[in-house]
């Protein structure tokens, strides 16, 4: 009886995942592969209800994988079983302690319609500009990028959002007139952009292509204070019954071959330093040592601790 590896992930782009990862990996491991699909929250909640059982590998964005770690749902990784770790950017190797590595990298920044926003946006603080009244969409506080707004608001007010939360939220209050509506999903953002409801958004880079398809003048702002890094991680839940296989799988997806294929086909930005892309292939990704070096890193442990309070305050600011 062959083993079955159960993978929990989002579930989009199944065809490419099959071709690039699943089929070749099955050949290597001689095992069956089964998926559990859904968004971060759904899958992590279910994993918690199952007390960390039922899944061998779980894909999450970094804020949720941090949550999983805090809930004690994952086991530590045996780095020795993942030789390909050596080839990935430093920030992805052990982003949340001894738990799972990142397998792709992205960034949060500002996009704007260069045809309508003048002068161009060049810093986080530009979001507060008077000429952007009723032009902006922020990510909802419950999304990956939402809490980053709080951090940037703190910075804009000259404070640390963790230390002086009041300051950060008074800055958000000040930002409110510029906000048309906050979005909760990528598709919602794209709709807001394509219908002209908003011209400026704080967004993750993977939405850029779609926004540009709708409004070709959408531009990724070159922020002098830098974009923020987001990582998607892979972890092994503590109840995994195929720990060996899980390590083997993680090692496989970090391999140059997989990373190269995924990047070329527009699935995920590479975290492997071995991948090389043409400028055209690279333009939609967070790619290259320079760009990676310029990214700000988030302490998700700290952020998750503050999040419940932030959500309440955020609700009160935007809900009145």
């Amino acid at each position, binding site marked *: 009886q062959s083993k079955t590896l159960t993978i929990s992930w989002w579930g989009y782009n199944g065809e490419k995942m099959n071709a690039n990862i699943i089929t070749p990996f099955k050949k290597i491991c001689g095992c069956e592969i089964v998926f559990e699909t859904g968004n971060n*929250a*759904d899958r*992590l*909640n279910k994993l*918690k209800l199952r007390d960390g059982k039922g899944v061998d590998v779980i894909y999450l964005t970094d804020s949720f994988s941090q*949550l999983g770690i805090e*809930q004690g749902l994952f086991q530590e990784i045996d780095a020795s079983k993942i030789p390909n770790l050596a080839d990935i950017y430093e920030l992805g190797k052990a982003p949340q302690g001894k738990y799972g590595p990142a397998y792709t990298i992205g960034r949060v920044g500002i996009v704007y319609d260069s045809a309508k926003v003048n002068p161009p946006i060049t810093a986080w603080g530009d979001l507060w500009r008077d000429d952007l009244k009723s032009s902006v969409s922020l990510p*909802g506080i*419950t999304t990956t990028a939402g809490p980053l707004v709080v951090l940037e608001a703190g910075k804009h007010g000259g404070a640390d959002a963790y230390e002086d939360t009041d300051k950060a939220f008074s800055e958000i209050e000040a930002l409110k007139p510029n906000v*048309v*509506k*906050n979005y*909760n*999903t990528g*598709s*919602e953002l794209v*709709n*807001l952009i394509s*219908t*002209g*409801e908003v011209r400026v958004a704080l967004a993750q880079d993977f939405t850029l292509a779609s926004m540009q398809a709708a409004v070709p003048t959408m531009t990724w702002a070159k922020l002098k204070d830098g974009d923020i890094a987001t990582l998607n991680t892979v972890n092994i839940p503590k109840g995994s019954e195929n720990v060996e296989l899980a390590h083997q799988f993680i090692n496989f997806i970090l391999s140059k071959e997989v990373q190269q294929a995924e990047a070329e086909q527009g699935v995920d930005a590479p975290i492997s330093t071995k991948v090389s892309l043409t400028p055209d292939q690279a333009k939609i990704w967070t790619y290259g040592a320079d760009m990676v070096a310029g990214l700000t890193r988030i302490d998700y442990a700290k952020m998750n601790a503050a*999040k*419940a309070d932030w*959500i*309440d305050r*955020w*609700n*009160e600011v*935007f*809900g*009145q």
Partner: protein
Amino acid sequence: MKHFARWGLTMPATIAVVVLLIVPVAITIAATFAEPKGVFAPYVTFFSSGFRRAVLYRTLEIALITTAISLTVGFITAYVIAQMPGRAKSIMIVAAVFPLLTGVVVRSFAWLIILGKNGILNTMLISTGILSEPLSMLYTEGSVIVAMVYLFVPLMILTLVGVLEGIPRDLIDASASLGARPLMTFFQVILPLATPGLIVGAVLVFTGSFTSYATPQLLGGEKQMMMGTFLYQRAMVTFDWVGASTIAAIMVVLTLSVVLIMSRIARRLNPMAV
């Protein structure tokens, strides 16, 4: 034998609800009374927040308005459909079902196109000179209600057509022959006789709109936050199931009360209504 019929027929469904719903949900909600800070601590916390109370009132308000509008609009439409000859009637019923087949995301996109700043309605109003500036129709309580009514009117229609068809023609004739003008016949005969359907529709719409979260989030935004969204945040984002269960318990008590009040009103209109 008779007793078996009475209770036996309801038994499978009753057991299903008790075992699969009441007990599991009671267990979940029971956790809210086991907080270290005190038996009712989570509830005290909830109600001491002005913002939370505001969300609760808003939710109640939106659900009640949605129910009232859906009830009226759905009833009148169902009434007209019920008078149609058989074929036209069926086609209209099927047409009414279509809105239910659309996913929440595309549906909200459609309303974005209609109600948006650059939307069809604004464009029309401006080009006809009625407006000089686009109106902000989206992200208001109104847009949430419109979108929910859109979803619940078909449900009302579907529930009511059958009930209205079941009203014997003779009773309407009898009413007319006693001098009741159509409007009076409507209020004194058709309406009471339709209450079994109306109450079902009202309950479905009220509970549906009271617990909804995707539609208010997409068309109302955070300004129109409702209890469902609130609950969703607690449960799915912060993993605070106690907080979420507290909200759920409050919602259940409230909706149940409203449902019971509705049933009471229905029985006053028609003592035969269950």
